[in-house]
């Protein structure tokens, strides 16, 4: 990311803005919304990606220290993915590249929704970081 930041700075007009949008290092949470309650089911393990986050943070810190950018604003929010069925959740799992979704999540949802028919929602909650930097 160090080189990508240098390139981004080169491509930006002086005073231009860099928006950094990426997941944080918190695991994604799988939740089940029933008519009566919202339940926490489990986490999708993203530990294998943490070294990339550490590297990205270090690259940004270096860019700030070098006077290439100035941090203007930073916050987090939740990116929500809503799914209607376990089949959708299987599709979601197939799309994961390095994160791991344990089978226990499927087993638990299957057990909890046995009497719900279609009246439930599977929600995957991912914490995202968004920051704005000014090109100096």
């Amino acid at each position, binding site marked *: 990311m160090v080189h*990508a930041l240098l390139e981004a700075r080169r*491509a930006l007009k002086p005073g231009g*803005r860099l928006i950094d949008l990426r997941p944080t290092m918190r695991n994604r949470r799988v939740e089940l919304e029933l008519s009566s309650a919202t339940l926490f089911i489990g986490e999708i393990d993203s530990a294998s990606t943490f070294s990339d986050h550490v590297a990205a943070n270090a690259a940004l810190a270096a860019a700030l220290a070098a006077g290439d950018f100035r941090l203007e*604003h930073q916050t987090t929010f939740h990116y929500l993915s*809503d799914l209607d069925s376990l089949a*959708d959740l299987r599709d979601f799992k197939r799309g994961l590249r390095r994160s791991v979704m344990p089978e226990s999540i499927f087993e638990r949802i299957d057990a909890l929704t046995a009497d719900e028919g279609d009246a439930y929602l599977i929600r995957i909650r991912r914490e*995202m970081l968004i920051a704005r930097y000014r090109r100096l």
Partner: protein
Amino acid sequence: MAIRSDAAGNELSFLLDMLGGKGGQFLEVGCGDGRLTRKYALRAARVYGVDLPSTLPRAGSEPLPASVHLAAASGVHLPFPAGRFDHVIFALAF
């Protein structure tokens, strides 16, 4: 049955808040299939997106707005002249 991404619209809401209503020329590094690009493209004069060839939209995908141009390129060797863009968006997923 479907996977509804950004179901609450938080990603777009926070991105637009960060942009503060500013338009201009955008570059998105890590654009993938244009999922995020579609959301803010109407607020930009022009958007260029770059990513690995395997992640770009496939033939037959839903068309992108005319102001959007996606291409295979590396974020460490951007095929653009210096000082071209008002905004660069790093939309990275690990």
